[in-house]
């Protein structure tokens, strides 16, 4: 009669069967279902894609700094179809540009920030043995991998890779070469992967939190991942739909994005017409604005963890930060058309989107301010992760503040599609997000390997990158304010107003190549530390969150004993405590009976 009771009795028996199962090489390292292995797979694949995308940009920067001069070293690798005599053709420049953007955003940063860090750290921080759906987790990685490979095959297609920008605006993208088709197919794989991943993340956070870990005791990083997953879950499907529509346009002859009467190269296009290019823009930006928060929120999460740990103080305003991040996530769905002020939008809608855009900057400022105030009066430990986390604050500040003039239609009309926009979002994503991701790599490396990365090489990596990256992006504001357009393969040399601005391309070029050089210490550090780094214990940073109670590296199932949480996430330097950190997993000393389970979060 009582079915549930018998099941309950059966379950533990099941557990024992699985515990002693030995997995072979393939299922341990390649088709693994362990969130830590999958996280590391994502991390390494993401880092490789970042390096690849960055390399494309270093090549483009040669063309911009020294137009029409043969590209040194690698110029004759690309063949006569792309770079005859080593000189880049405009079509090839467009391919590199479109693929750079796509790779950095969809194949690099998001997989690293969500797939990598989210997968590895989040279950550990909430005290879960694994993700809620391990098989699905493995599938997410492999679907992402296939999508990435599909996209790269564009380079060997007739006519080359996609060349309509990472935004793939029609009608241009509808009539572009085959590379665009594989771009779309790749995107559909990536979106599917993100959807599977986000479902898994949300279920894991809601269902698998350890005993005593209430929502208001979650580390900020987990909150950031939680909100990010909702963005992925609800914003990505419209782009999937848009991708299907564009595929239909390209393969089945429909005209979703093709207006009537279109003339291409002097000939009328033989399609039914009646479509709307703006439809694509709406569907694209409905995803792509939330997507920029997918890029930034996990970064904020990492920075919050690193700052709390290295200031040895609780985060200032944890609750305000949590409410802000949730509000930010919500608002990010209703600002998208600030990317479309130049499409003939009327004043009513423009007023709506300007208002929402101004509102959304408030929670960003709250989070940034809270992180800044957390530094106040702290005796800061300048470890490598902390250097990157500290640099994040002003860099993200510059990026965010330069966004405001873009969010107001009157100024955006002048700035739209100039290098100013490029400067804006790169400040947020490159010295912002990517620096935060580096901070995360240095911070959690000991948990993944049991060894620390080298601090000297880390400092060289940081200072070199920090200086070079500002030489790359600061001049872009000058160029953009001067009116220089983005996406021109010679920098727009034919326009008089650019005459005084082109010289900055040389500065930017050297900044970019220098930045490339300063990644070498990181690559050396990363690989040599796996085997040769300094051995450390479970909690090398004296941190408070749950992942540091597991062994380094954690075994299958993560924790040796079931973790129980007694307090909020950042109890550093608690007055009267015997050391300057009181981990979440440490029971209260005075009243051992009163575990604090179920009590509200911290104040």
């Amino acid at each position: 009669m009582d079915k549930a009771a018998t099941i309950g009795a059966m379950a533990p028996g099941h557990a024992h069967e699985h515990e002693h199962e030995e997995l072979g090489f393939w299922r341990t390292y390649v088709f693994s279902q362990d969130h830590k292995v999958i996280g590391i797979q994502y991390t390494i694949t993401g880092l490789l894609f970042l390096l690849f995308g960055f390399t494309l940009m270093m090549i483009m920067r040669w063309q911009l700094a020294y137009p029409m001069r043969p590209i040194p070293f690698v110029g004759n690798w690309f063949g006569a179809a792309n770079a005859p005599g080593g000189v880049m053709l405009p079509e090839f420049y467009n391919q590199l540009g479109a693929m750079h953007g796509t790779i950095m955003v969809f194949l690099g940063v998001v997989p690293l920030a969500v797939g990598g860090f989210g997968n590895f750290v989040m279950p550990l921080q909430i005290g879960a043995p694994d993700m809620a759906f391990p098989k699905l987790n493995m599938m997410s990685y492999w679907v992402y991998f296939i999508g990435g490979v599909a996209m790269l095959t564009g380079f060997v297609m007739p006519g080359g890779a996609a060349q309509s920008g990472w935004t793939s605006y029609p009608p241009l993208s509808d009539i572009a070469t085959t590379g665009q088709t594989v771009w779309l197919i790749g995107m559909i794989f990536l979106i599917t992967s993100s959807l599977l991943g986000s479902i898994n993340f949300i279920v894991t956070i809601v269902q698998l939190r350890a005993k005593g870990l209430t929502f208001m005791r979650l580390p900020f990083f987990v909150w950031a991942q939680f909100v990010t997953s909702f963005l992925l879950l609800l914003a990505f499907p419209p782009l999937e739909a848009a991708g299907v529509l564009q595929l239909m346009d390209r393969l089945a002859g429909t005209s979703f994005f093709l207006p009537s009467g279109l003339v291409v190269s002097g000939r009328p296009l033989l399609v039914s017409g009646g479509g709307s290019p703006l439809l694509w823009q709406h569907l694209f930006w409905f995803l792509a604005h939330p997507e920029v928060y997918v890029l930034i929120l996990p970064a904020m999460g990492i920075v919050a963890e690193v700052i709390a740990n290295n200031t040895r103080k609780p985060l200032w305003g944890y609750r305000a930060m949590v409410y802000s991040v949730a509000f930010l996530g919500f608002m990010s769905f209703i600002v998208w058309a600030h990317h479309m002020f130049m499409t003939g939008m009327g004043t009513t809608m423009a007023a709506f989107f300007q208002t929402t855009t101004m509102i959304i900057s408030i929670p960003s400022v709250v989070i940034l301010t809270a992180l800044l105030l957390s530094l106040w009066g702290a005796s800061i430990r300048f470890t490598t992760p902390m250097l990157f986390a500290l640099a994040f604050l002003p860099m993200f500040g510059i990026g965010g503040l330069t966004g405001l003039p873009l969010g107001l239609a009157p100024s955006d009309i002048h700035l739209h599609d100039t290098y100013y926009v490029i400067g804006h979002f790169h400040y947020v994503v490159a010295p912002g997000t990517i620096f935060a991701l580096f901070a995360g790599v240095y911070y959690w490396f000991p948990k993944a390997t049991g060894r620390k990365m080298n601090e000297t090489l880390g400092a060289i990596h940081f200072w070199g990158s920090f200086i070079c990256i500002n030489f790359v992006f600061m001049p872009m504001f000058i160029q953009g304010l001067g009116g220089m357009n983005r996406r021109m393969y010679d920098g727009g040399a034919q326009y008089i107003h650019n005459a005084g601005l082109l010289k900055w391309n040389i500065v930017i070029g050297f900044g970019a190549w220098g930045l490339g050089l300063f990644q070498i210490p990181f690559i050396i550090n990363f690989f040599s530390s796996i085997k040769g780094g300094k051995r450390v214990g479970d909690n090398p940073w004296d941190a408070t969150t749950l992942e540091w109670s597991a062994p380094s590296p954690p075994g299958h199932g993560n924790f040796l004993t079931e973790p129980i949480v007694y307090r909020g996430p950042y109890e550093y330097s608690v007055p009267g405590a015997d050391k300057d950190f009181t981990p979440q997993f440490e029971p209260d000393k005075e009243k051992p009976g009163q575990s604090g389970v179920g009590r509200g979060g911290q104040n």
Partner: protein
Amino acid sequence: MHSDQAEVKKSVRSYMTVFVMLMVFTVLTVAASRFHLAVPVAITLALVIAAMKGSMVASVFMHLSHEKRAIYGALLLTIVFFLVLLFIPVLSMMDHIGTPK
């Protein structure tokens, strides 16, 4: 979830009621379309009927009438964004400088 057999029997009865109602509404909506009503009236009527059918499927077959809070929360969020997605693009297309389309 924990409903015992009697309760399941009771819900089976409501499944049958909903089944009949869905059939009736299907006939109704087809019949209404035969009448050549003015387009706005026809659209409203058809959508109201579809919404009623949809909510019956959701609340009875999918048990949404008594679900857990977490699910209500997630769905509420989805519905809000769904409405935004449905109407804002067309609204901004209608509020347009210069020739529309």
